[in-house]
């Protein structure tokens, strides 16, 4: 049975994480060979996952670590 686009979309996240079984992966791969929409959806989703993971997206506030360790020092001095 050939799987349709909606079926592929349901498994995109697991597919990206390598968390689909061999049979399903083979079906998805076969579908991707001929479906430019699903290929673009997969590529863009994977690209989004990589971009949001970059440290430059969410940076700690300036001085966060210094203030935290100063607070720890005050606590350690009292304990």
């Amino acid at each position: 049975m050939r799987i349709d686009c909606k079926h592929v979309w349901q498994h995109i996240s697991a597919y990206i994480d390598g968390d689909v079984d061999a049979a399903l992966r083979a079906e998805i791969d076969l579908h991707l060979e001929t479906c430019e929409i699903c290929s673009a959806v997969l590529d863009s989703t994977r690209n989004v996952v990589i971009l949001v993971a970059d440290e430059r997206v969410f940076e700690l506030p300036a001085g966060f670590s210094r203030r935290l360790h100063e607070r720890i020092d005050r606590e350690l001095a009292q304990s």
Partner: protein
Amino acid sequence: MDHAKSQLDAELIRRILAGEKLLFHDLIRSCERPIYLLLYSLLRNEAEAEDAAQETVIKVYTNLHLFRGDSQFRTWVLSIARNEGLGRLRKIGSRREDSLDAGNDDQGGDFTPAILTSWREIPTTALEQSELAAILRKAIDGLPEIYRNIVLLRDIEEMDIRETAAALEISEGAVKVRLHRARAMLQRVLAPQLKAFAPRRKGLFGGFR
């Protein structure tokens, strides 16, 4: 996180409890970012998240003798951070109901992806443009809480499914479902905006199109 890291943490904890208190600085260092991000995800305010992060770290220190080593140290720390964050939300009368109802997976939302017929990859070097980072941040901030914290822990802090589930006290199945929905929502919101950041491709005869 691997076994060697767990052993290193266990050894540091043993020495801290035996009196080498200053080693606590080293122990907590690798947890700083995930603590802050989880609290920012809950509280959505930088100053409040920083204050809660400091409170969390002090609680970790004063309760260190209670850590049993049956989970990763970081997982234990993050559950303390989560309780700190939820406690603060309750105190201020929860501006957002969804954050306290972590078991609810039936929140509405459109998980259909943005339909494209081609995608030109956007390299991470494009993040040198602060505008791109801002667009990504805004998209993540716009996710419902139960999806946002999964993205922060799993995709941004790169914690595995098991550790993410343990830190948020939900099942691994729920982590997978929420992660899938979160990624679908991000693709839907971001793909149309990100296209503008695709590098120009060299056309025939060395020209740009």
